[in-house]
């Protein structure tokens, strides 16, 4: 385990902000650290990086290294803090690498590689104050990746990024984990598509762990039955609905102008069920509903999604 928190408690100004938090994280995994505003995500990050000290409990980073400076040498944090606005991108990155004692020639190669990967090479000598929010966000992420950390902590990494950059960031992070065996903690409110990148999910609420585990396991625990989405033409809708209601637990049905949709759940072998339905009624398609981290988040916290 690269990180273990055991029964950690922390109060700030007499208010308990972290309550008996325990979890651990394996090397080379990506953990999505989720929770509403004020849930304690930033405090957890500050505790892991020894910026603040827990009132009780044990935090073990890198197998029990207790020197805060050593710990921070191997952890990189991208948070919503700012860059040095009156310095250039290059100066910001070079100074950062200097704090981590990266040899100068290696540092310059690394800056060149990463700025090229994030498509900002041509702005290397621009003052940070002149950049857009999205560009600054890219520099903050590059700054965090620059030091080849064992543990990379990203706090709202997609904030300000356009959809193309969000996709690119996901790709870069996945490659980065594979190449360097880096472990990533990603605190984010951007839940869309998270299941494709996060190995583990931890949902905090009011300083307590509500849910923690492997992403796929949590989703399958939350939705133990397979849900199928059956599409058919409008004229077949009523008959199909009658047939499916008689044989399965229909959980949702709707029809638009040209297409109807019936969702059902089954505990049986879904391949066989799909084959049977396709054989018995006229359908346009049957798909397995893949539940998402976003749905898990809303279901766990007991709040309704406004948009699905």
């Amino acid at each position: 385990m690269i990180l273990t928190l055991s029964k950690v408690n922390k109060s700030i100004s007499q208010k308990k902000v972290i309550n008996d938090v325990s979890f651990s994280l394996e090397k080379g995994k990506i953990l999505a650290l989720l929770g509403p505003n004020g849930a304690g995500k930033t405090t957890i990050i500050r505790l892991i990086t020894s910026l603040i000290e827990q009132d009780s409990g044990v935090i073990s980073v890198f197998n029990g290294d207790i020197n805060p400076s050593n710990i921070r040498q191997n952890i990189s944090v991208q948070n919503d803090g700012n860059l040095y606005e009156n310095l250039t991108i290059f100066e910001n990155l070079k100074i950062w690498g200097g704090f981590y004692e990266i040899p100068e020639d290696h540092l310059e190669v690394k800056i060149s590689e990463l700025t090229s990967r994030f498509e900002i090479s041509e702005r290397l000598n621009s003052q940070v104050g002149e950049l857009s929010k999205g560009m600054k966000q890219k520099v903050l992420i590059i700054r965090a990746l620059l030091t080849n950390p064992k543990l990379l902590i990203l706090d709202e990494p997609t904030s300000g990024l356009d959809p193309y950059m969000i996709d690119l960031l996901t790709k870069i992070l996945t490659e980065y984990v594979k190449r360097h065996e880096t472990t990533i903690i990603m605190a984010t409110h951007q839940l869309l598509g998270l299941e494709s990148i996060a190995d583990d999910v931890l949902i905090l609420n009011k300083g307590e762990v509500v849910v923690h585990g492997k992403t796929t396991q949590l989703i399958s625990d939350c939705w133990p039955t397979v849900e199928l989405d059956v599409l058919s033409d409008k004229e077949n809708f009523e008959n199909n609905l009658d047939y499916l209601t008689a044989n399965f637990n229909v959980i949702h049905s709707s029809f638009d102008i040209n297409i109807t949709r019936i969702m059902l759940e089954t505990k049986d072998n879904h391949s066989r069920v799909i084959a049977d339905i396709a054989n018995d009624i006229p359908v346009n398609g049957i798909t397995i509903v893949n539940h998402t981290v976003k749905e898990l988040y809303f279901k766990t916290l007991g709040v309704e999604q406004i948009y699905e």
Partner: protein
Amino acid sequence: MNKHRIKILVQKEWLELKNDKATLAPLLILPIMFSIILPSILIFGGVRNVLINNVGGVSQFLENFKSDLIPSNISAENIGLYALLIFFFMPLFLLIPIMISTVLASSSFVGEKEKRTIEGLLYTPLSDSELLMGKLIAVLVPSILLTWVSVFLYGIVLDVLGYGVFESMIFPTVHWLIMMFIIAPLLTFFSTMLVLMVSQKSKSSKSAQSVAMILLIPIIGMMISQASGLMVFGAIFELILVVILIILNIITFNIVTKMFVREKIVLNS
């Protein structure tokens, strides 16, 4: 302590200062005024000029000044001008290190909070002592150097322009050397420590700078004391000042090192 990390932090601070013209420009105005403009006006105008006659404190200072502090080679008609340039001006030059160090320290410590860069810096491997040391070097070195350059320029003006009046080089004196090499650095350190103490609570660099007012009061007190003839910036006074500053620096440094804990910095930012 890791020297490399301290060096990088100092470089970062100076690079930021170099690019921050709004902070840098006012820092140069006061030294230029005290080092070049004011002494030049006095020397060209002579001791009976309009400036001296119209500034109450100066004329009172000249009336009360004890002439036994004046070297024998200074002619009677130049005693007043000599006393002004060598004694009256000395407290003015103590304002330079106070002002520069206060502005730099508040910009360096509270400025990081204002610009929301402090937390990022605290996530780096810099230890508390490296962070404090790097920031102190970045503030103290330019403050002291700029004070020395100001005094050096003042000396050149006095010796070059004043040679025609005094027929000898009147600068430096032992008092000025003590002021320059001992008192000014101690005062710079003290004002920086005061800014650091208030920076824990202060959310803006302007409010942190107001601490300089505390130091301006004794300096103004010195000028009034000189003007009223109560005391002159001589050897005994300098010795007392050095001892007081050393004690104050030890006390404030101890307070600051205890206060300089990253948890407090993070939670107060």
